[in-house]
């Protein structure tokens, strides 16, 4: 459906080139929710932005391919990419305040997009917009059409964003931290909405998140990223129950849960994500890894015994047992 192959994104500052992702590869299958999970700075968001050619000015794809419907999106002229953007692949953001134009009403923004992309008449677009707003759970859709973004709550704005993203019936929805700015009860509503929309429209969702809980609730498969690299890929159940990469393991035991036994001490990963990881050779997690002692620390992609890709030199041998976890 959508395949990312050896993607390398670099940021340029003057003559200095900083490689922010390193041979990132994964693919999004039809109808699935694939989560791209990792901490800030791991490269998950820029990977998502690069798919639609939305990297900031100083960023550029410097290697690899993004394949969609037989085309390499990284090599596509802007005009052709514009045909795909919003129509075939659309995106919603965490920053709901800045993703809507503050000086136009919700209705104006929705109608404009549909007239432009789908060639609807004003009336057709209006009817479709109201139907979409209703579908995303906005009770009084006609009234919402006349409102400006600042008049809506965070949850409502995200619903409007989702409705706009759905307007052209995309095959893939990229959702960048769609619930991070929302309260938990609203987060649950939005997660349920996204899942039901996936079922109804059969689209794929590429979910970018830092929250393992959200992954557990929504995703079918997961790609874990660390310091600009993919470190593990697995279906959600396997990843949560038998994480193979030490970073995934650490991440899972660092989250305080509502069902935890009292008195449990959280595992905290020592140190911090290396800031200059783009210059590193070998395993990028080594200096924080509890198993680095007797490990070659090459940091190459290996296969765990069950076949899933894991960027850990110890993964090949015994899988999780090798880490004594």
């Amino acid at each position: 459906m959508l395949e990312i192959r050896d993607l390398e994104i670099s940021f340029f500052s003057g003559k200095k080139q900083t490689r922010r992702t390193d041979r990132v590869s994964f693919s999004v299958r039809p109808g699935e929710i694939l989560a791209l999970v990792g901490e800030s700075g791991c490269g998950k968001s820029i990977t998502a932005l690069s798919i639609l050619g939305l990297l900031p000015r100083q960023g550029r794809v410097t290697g690899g391919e993004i394949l969609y419907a037989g085309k390499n999106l990284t090599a596509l002229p802007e005009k052709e990419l514009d045909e795909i953007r919003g129509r075939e692949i659309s995106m919603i953001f965490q920053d709901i305040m800045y993703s809507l134009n503050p000086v136009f009403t919700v209705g104006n923004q929705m109608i404009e997009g549909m007239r432009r992309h789908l060639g609807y008449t004003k009336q057709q677009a209006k009817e479709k917009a109201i139907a979409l707003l209703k579908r995303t759970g906005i009770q009084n859709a006609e009234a919402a059409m006349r409102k400006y973004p600042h008049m809506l709550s965070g949850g409502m704005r995200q619903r409007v964003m989702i409705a706009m993203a759905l307007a052209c019936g995309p095959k893939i929805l990229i959702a960048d931290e769609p619930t991070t700015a929302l309260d938990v009860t609203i987060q649950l509503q939005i997660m349920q909405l996204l899942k039901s929309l996936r079922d109804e429209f059969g689209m794929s969702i590429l979910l970018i998140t830092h929250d393992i809980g959200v992954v557990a609730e929504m995703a079918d498969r997961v790609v874990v990223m660390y310091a600009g690299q993919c470190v593990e890929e697995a279906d959600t159940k396997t990843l949560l129950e038998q994480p193979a990469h030490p970073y995934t393991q650490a991440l899972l035991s660092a989250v305080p849960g509502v069902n935890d036994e009292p008195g449990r001490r959280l595992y905290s990963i020592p140190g911090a994500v290396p800031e200059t990881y783009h210059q590193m050779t070998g395993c990028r997690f080594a200096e924080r890894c509890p198993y680095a002692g007797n490990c070659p620390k090459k940091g190459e992609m290996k296969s765990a015994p069950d076949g899933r890709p894991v960027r850990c030199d110890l993964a090949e041998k015994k899988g999780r047992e090798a880490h004594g976890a």
Partner: protein
Amino acid sequence: MAHDTPIMEVRNLTKHYRAGGAGLRHAVTKAVDGIDLSLRAGETFGIVGESGCGKSTVARLMMGLEAPTSGEVYFRGERIDNMPESRKRLLRPKFQMVFQDSGSSLNPRKRVMDILAEPMLYHGKAGRAEVLRRVDELLEQVGLPSAAKTRYPHEFSGGQKQRICIAKALSLGPELIVLDEPVSALDVSVQAQILNLLKDLQEELKLTYLFIGHGLGAVRYVSSRIAVMYMGKIVETGGADELFRHPAHPYTQALLDAAPVADYSLRNRPRIALRGEAGGMAPAGGCPFRDRCPHARPVCAEMTVSLEPVPGGEGRLSACPFGR
């Protein structure tokens, strides 16, 4: 320390804000609406609730950063909300605050050393040499290298900045620290580091914490007792473990239901998604939660809501008479 002397106590604390409208018709937002709390020495008391529920306002009122519309705030039995500033200044070192946004809590033009020394010099705690020695000690306590003191805030990561904020709060030897969403802006691995640091410091220095958060897991992890707030009111309070295991108020149940759990076997657990959103005005009279409550009944619109003991709830209080 006697267990029954609360270190800080608030009674019937209320804060109203004018929310637009002119003259006699102006609307009032009841940010905090008649809250009673008491913090025992050495405990961590957690307040949870969604944005706009008034939890941060409670913290600001306790710290004296804002004046309450009505109600009283006591520190060690002494009323502080109407105290003259000159007297309050003497008490201030005893209660300190750490904010979510560590970046804007630190002066970008000052070195860490000066940031940490400033409160001590202002309050005349010690001489120059003593202050410098204390700076080293503070940095060590929060797990930063001594070399950090000559650097500026922007040279640190989010987690390190939060460590500096904690060191600053510790500098005057407080008894109580109010932590307003101290880990919400941090990555999970860093979050765990800071939560563990806070726990260790509490044990070492016998601190009392008021921990405000919206991440239920984090609040549970550090708190011994918890209050759940909804639209300016406490709807349930009690021991953290009991409250999370057997929530009595429908809103507490809904909050726990909505919290994502990193456990695949619980993925399809039955749970209720609340209708609508909190915000704007509470419905007039009756229970403020009734328009979102899955168990609401007609009487909820008329009854006077008050916190009552939960049967068999080990001192827990709930504002819903129908809670199970």
